[in-house]
């Protein structure tokens, strides 16, 4: 039956001009989406290179000064080696490099910045990671490959399978088929699998073409992206299979499948998002602003107490001169550090809520294949909100290290030397998010598909599926 069915479907599909022309449209859509993704990637890279170059210039300057001074020469900009200058003015650039897959899924990368200057004068609580952008663009979103796959491909699947069984039923061909010694639901499943494979092959071809066009190299992530796409396709084929078995008319199948599409792709994600915001509401950012100011004010009014308290906790910084010798900068750094400490529970509240929201979304997202796919794709591309939360956390913890590194210099009142420059902490974006989350999404999609297929097969003969006799 299988080989019969394969030849049969190939014949039918190749003579179906809808299928052929829609495949061509799909090629164009994917190539256009790939082009958009590529442009986005290139801009992101160029911006980052520019920022890195500007930062490098600053760092080269202090290197030059330090080198001159280490040779015993004079330099007019010797003040640049003060710990305050290096910690605040020179600072360091924290960057989040773009991955190759981000050409396929822009995700949240249009919302956030990928290069942020770390300077000891910044408050972590108000550190902004947002990129300068036209909000209308953020509202509309991007035409990237993930969009084509998430929204459009399910509709292509629906268009090609919604009446695979009901067409036979309505024309009476199904009676002819059922008069043969076959399991009709298995026969139908084979047809679905064959169509699935044809679409998967076509998409593989299109995606490969797109990947080649945007200059992507073969990689494990790319393979995972393909697998995710296959799993997503399988889900929609399985849904259509089940609807076909339950349904009695092609028109009703079309409406049911489209309603499911609207529900799963359009409505459910917004409902889950809205529910996450309602169940785990974010504390007020605007209230936080005043809390920060209040804390700052208290700390600035009690500079001496602050310094005392700080030194009690950091006896290693106490120098022989005695505490009264300390001036503005020591107080400044100490109060900055104390402020971070005092505010960290407040800021953590935001992170905790966001983590809870993410967990909520992760578990309820299982209800919507679109969420699973989008989530998996952006995670592979390193453009998911999880990646950005990681980047934010990396930046915050590095900021603390950065300030801590300068404390001894500030309290010693010493300038940095050439060798000290080598020992400065270096920011590096480290992601511990593996592909395990994506693999979970793939498995869930596949398991759901298989369950639906099994359910369909189990319905063979259970209902009087053919009782449509006209007499």
């Amino acid at each position, binding site marked *: *039956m299988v080989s019969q069915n394969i030849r*049969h479907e190939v014949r039918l599909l190749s003579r179906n001009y809808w299928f052929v022309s829609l495949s061509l449209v799909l090629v164009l859509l994917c190539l256009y989406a790939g082009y958009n993704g590529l442009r986005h990637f290139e801009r992101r890279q160029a911006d980052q290179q520019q920022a890195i170059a500007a930062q490098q210039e600053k760092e080269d300057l202090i290197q030059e000064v330090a080198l001159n001074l280490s040779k015993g020469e004079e330099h007019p900009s010797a003040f640049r080696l003060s710990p305050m200058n290096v910690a605040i003015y020179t600072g360091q650039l924290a960057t989040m490099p773009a991955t190759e897959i981000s050409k396929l899924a822009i995700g949240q990368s249009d919302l956030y910045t990928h290069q942020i200057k770390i300077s000891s004068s910044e408050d972590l609580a108000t550190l902004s990671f947002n990129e300068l952008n036209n909000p209308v663009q953020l509202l509309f979103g991007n035409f990237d490959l993930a969009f084509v796959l998430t929204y459009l491909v399910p509709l292509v699947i629906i268009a090609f399978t919604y009446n695979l069984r009901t067409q036979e039923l309505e024309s009476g061909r199904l009676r002819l088929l059922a*008069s043969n010694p076959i399991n009709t639901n298995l*026969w139908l499943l084979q047809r679905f699998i064959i169509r699935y494979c044809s679409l998967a092959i076509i998409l593989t071809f299109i995606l490969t073409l797109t990947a080649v066009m945007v200059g992507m190299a073969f990689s494990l992530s790319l393979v995972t992206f393909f697998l995710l796409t296959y799993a997503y396709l399988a889900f929609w084929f399985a849904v259509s299979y089940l609807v076909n078995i339950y349904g009695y008319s092609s028109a009703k199948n079309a409406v049911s499948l489209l309603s499911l599409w609207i529900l799963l792709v359009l409505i459910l994600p917004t409902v889950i998002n809205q529910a996450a915001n309602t169940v785990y509401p974010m504390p007020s950012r605007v209230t936080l602003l005043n809390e920060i100011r209040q804390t700052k004010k208290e700390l600035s009014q009690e500079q001496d107490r602050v310094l005392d308290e700080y030194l009690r906790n950091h006896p290693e910084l106490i120098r022989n001169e005695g505490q009264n010798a300390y001036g503005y900068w020591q107080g400044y750094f100490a109060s900055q550090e104390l402020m971070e400490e005092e505010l960290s529970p407040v800021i953590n509240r935001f992170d905790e809520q966001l983590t809870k929201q993410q967990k909520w979304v992760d578990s309820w997202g299982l209800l919507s294949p679109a969420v699973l796919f989008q989530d998996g794709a952006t995670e592979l591309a390193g453009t998911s909100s999880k990646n950005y939360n990681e980047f934010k956390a990396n930046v915050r913890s590095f900021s603390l290290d950065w300030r801590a590194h300068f404390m001894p210099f500030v309290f010693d009142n010493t300038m940095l030397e050439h060798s000290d420059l080598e020992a400065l902490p270096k920011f590096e974006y480290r992601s511990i998010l593996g592909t395990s989350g994506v693999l979970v999404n793939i498995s869930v999609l596949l398991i759901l598909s298989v369950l639906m297929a099994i359910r369909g097969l189990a319905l063979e003969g259970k209902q009087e599926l*053919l*009782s449509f*006799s006209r*007499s």
Partner: protein
Amino acid sequence: MLHAVNLTKKYQENLALDNLNLVIEPGDIYCLLGANGAGKSTTINLFLNFIAPTSGKAVIDQIEVSKDPQAIKKLIAYIPENLVLYNELSGLENLEYFVGLAGMKYQQDELVSFLQEAGLQSEAFKKRVKTYSKGMRQKIGVAMAIAKRAKVLLLDEPTSGLDPKASNEFSELLLRLSQQNVATLMATHDLFRAKETGTDIGIMKSGKLVEQLSTEEINHSDLEKLYLNHMNN
């Protein structure tokens, strides 16, 4: 070959088939007559296992249909009133596909010979089915039955809507198959065709078999009188 034993089908309160008993031997062409809704198609659907009987049993070649539907489907061929095929495939391709689903493998020339046997003109073999007339499509149905080496033929008003010539050709095909010991059950409205082609006639009314006779016992006009008599009561 075909046995209906107290075969009954109920839809909620509606008795579609009431205690039908029927025997059709190899070589018989049994014609079921009756108005729309009399239970003709229900009988055929029960033999095809498209629906399950409420009580009683349908038996083909000593196998109870509802017990082992896959086994009996190897024996039967079915031609509905309107044989719908895949329009974008040729007659030959359609035959190949359906016969393949029945688990048979044939070479191209064998398939061609079945079509010839079924009386389809050879220039039509490779044309797409959407260009076929109804009679041509019914011939593909017959070719399927031949290729399947069916022992039982179940026909649901196969000649309605055919022109007299096509109808006549179809009857001749049935006769040829019956000579090869195929048992045929045909539901029809066509009294003339039933008398000409059939060996036995059954008249159904409101789910009951009200009359059974052999075609040799009766002539055309008496059959019509008898039929109308039953219908009017």
